[in-house]
């Protein structure tokens, strides 16, 4: 790996169980904070697990939760110990390698999707999401963006609503009525 292409180094991505990510021997930006959060989180869980049944019995409902939380705490502490000793990965920065702006934007889009899904309904929310994210990612013309978004949304809708009969929130579009009208049309024509 040369210095210039490390930003495309997929070996740090953890794309599979056979190749988990991370930079071996180096501490990546944010890794220390992440590890500390894991330690605190594990400690809170252990405290909570102790609260289930204390040390009442080995077969109590709290036994396995306490055991797992203890294992989490110990392993997280060991990772913290290792992380502290590693030198920082000097060639990486938080905004470039860990959470580039695109990731933040897309994550915010996802949250917005969750907020809008029930009030607006599946079709309008999804269309907005696809339009915005495809436009930002592809940097292509609006014509391309609209064609691809509408086309793929239609495909997804047909497959999942009709074939898999998945029910999504309808929101502001009277889907059921429209579908029924189409069915009537075909029934009338037959």
């Amino acid at each position, binding site marked *: 790996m040369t210095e210039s292409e490390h930003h495309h180094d997929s070996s740090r991505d953890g794309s599979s169980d056979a190749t988990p990510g991370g930079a071996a021997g180096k501490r990546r930006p944010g890794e220390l904070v992440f590890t500390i959060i894991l330690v605190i989180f594990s400690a809170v869980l252990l405290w909570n697990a102790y609260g289930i049944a204390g040390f009442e019995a080995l077969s109590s409902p709290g036994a396995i939760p306490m055991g797992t939380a203890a294992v*989490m705490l110990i*392993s997280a502490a060991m990772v913290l110990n290792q992380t502290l000793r590693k030198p920082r990965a000097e060639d990486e920065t938080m905004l470039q390698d860990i959470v*580039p702006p695109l990731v933040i934007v897309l994550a915010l889009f996802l949250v917005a999707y969750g907020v809008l899904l029930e009030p607006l309904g599946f079709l309008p929310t999804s269309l907005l999401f696809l339009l915005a994210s495809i436009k930002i*990612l592809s940097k292509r013309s609006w014509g391309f963006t609209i064609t691809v978004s509408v086309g793929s949304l239609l495909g997804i809708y047909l497959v999942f609503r009709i074939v898999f009969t998945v029910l999504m929130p309808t929101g502001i579009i009277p889907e059921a009525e429209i579908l029924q009208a189409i069915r009537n049309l075909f029934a009338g024509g037959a």
Partner: protein
Amino acid sequence: MEHVLALFTVFAHPQLLLLVGLGTFAGVYVGAIPGLSVTMAVSILISFTFSWDVLPAISLMIGIYMGGVYGGSRTAILLNIPGAPSAIATALDGYPMAQRGEAGEAIGVTTVMSFFGGFIGILVLALLAPFVADFALTFQPRDYMLLAVLGILLVGSLSSGSLVKGIFSGALGIGIGAVGMDPLTFTERFTFDIPLLQQGISFIAVMIGMFGVSEALMQLHHVEKAAVRQKISRIVPSFGTIKKHLPLSIQTSSLGVLIGALPGTGGDIAALMAYDHAKRVTKNPSRKFGDGAIEGLVAPETANNAAVGGAFIPMMTLGIPGDAVTAIMIGALFIHGLNPGPMLMVEQPNMFWFIVGALIMANFFMLIFGLTGIKLFTKIVEMPRSVLIPLILLLSIVGAYAVNNSITDVYWMLGFGIFGYFMRHYGYPLGPVILGVILSRLLDDNWRRAIISEREDLGRFFYGIVTSPLSLVLLVAVILIFVSQTPLWTMFRKKDTQPK
């Protein structure tokens, strides 16, 4: 024996046959498109096939699994981007072959070898699983508990550079699985008095978040990776080539089945180990390994498809998944009211034979789709990531919502997606988390059963383990995994390999 006839269920029902075919076709493409993984596809599919009958749902998922394990090889050969993790080793020699203008031959060999490996895997499954299940009926609760621990540890240790991170992931999974009401005593666990947490966390939300959203967010790091198109020549390989590599393919297939059958390890690891094996045993490779040796294709491709059949052995007989995908398949069976394990094999042997039949069919479909449709294939694979990523994210949301029609699950999924994204960045394997979630209940139940039957006495519990050969073997295996990671062992190994 009449249950074996269930093998033919899938052949007798055109609808099921069609679904297996459709699944395999989709699997080949899902596996091939970088950024779409089989684990991701099966996680999302579970939620969509939720309302289906169990047989069609399983047919579709088996097709996807089989096709997906194979499909990754194509992009590995053509673009040097493994479409699926199990094809990482394939790229090492496949891409050099393509650069020499032998892409067609490489694809042909890969396809036939995947078929061969897949076939061996299914054969071993069909022959062995009934015996394993009989044997499993004698397992004590403590054995199940040890097996579950072993499975999670194996994923953690073989997959990750760091065993501690693997153990953390596994324990986290067990913890997530324990959230909610304890089914035996109705005590609240890890609920923090939040009503939302009383029902527990939907494992589908965890799965889709970890394997769908976090993967898609990861892909954002290289949206603009250009594809290089290759010329494709003849595809169907000559009989001579196949015959020449038969001995190697039998070895690597067996290795694949074995690794697949170990609880916790699957095709990803099988392929890498088989490649390593081929490198060691092949005296005169067709070319140097890494320069386009056919042996470098034969080994990983037979092994990863053989691992599919292997992975079904512990899943069907013990209810313990062989890898992340089978963990998800177990989840699917749970949803459809089936409980994989020795009792399933006794009470519903038809289900087992049906699955074997579906696997056989999927293997044949894979051969057909593998040797045809290359033109269409190159078109689809060139689908830009700028379109693909938003679509994966959208499907993940729909999938998470669809299971319980609940927006809460969508938020869980997003949360785990973002958490998983950071875990990937910092080198924590995600496989053990899913295994932990799926095995949490089994582990908890069997521990409590085991310790109650020993009257809450730890001494008696350990005495029980050391006096039962099976429990002892399992315990030794668990201990070995730990020892193999300690500095002491590394020192020992170094001494061993140093020239005298």
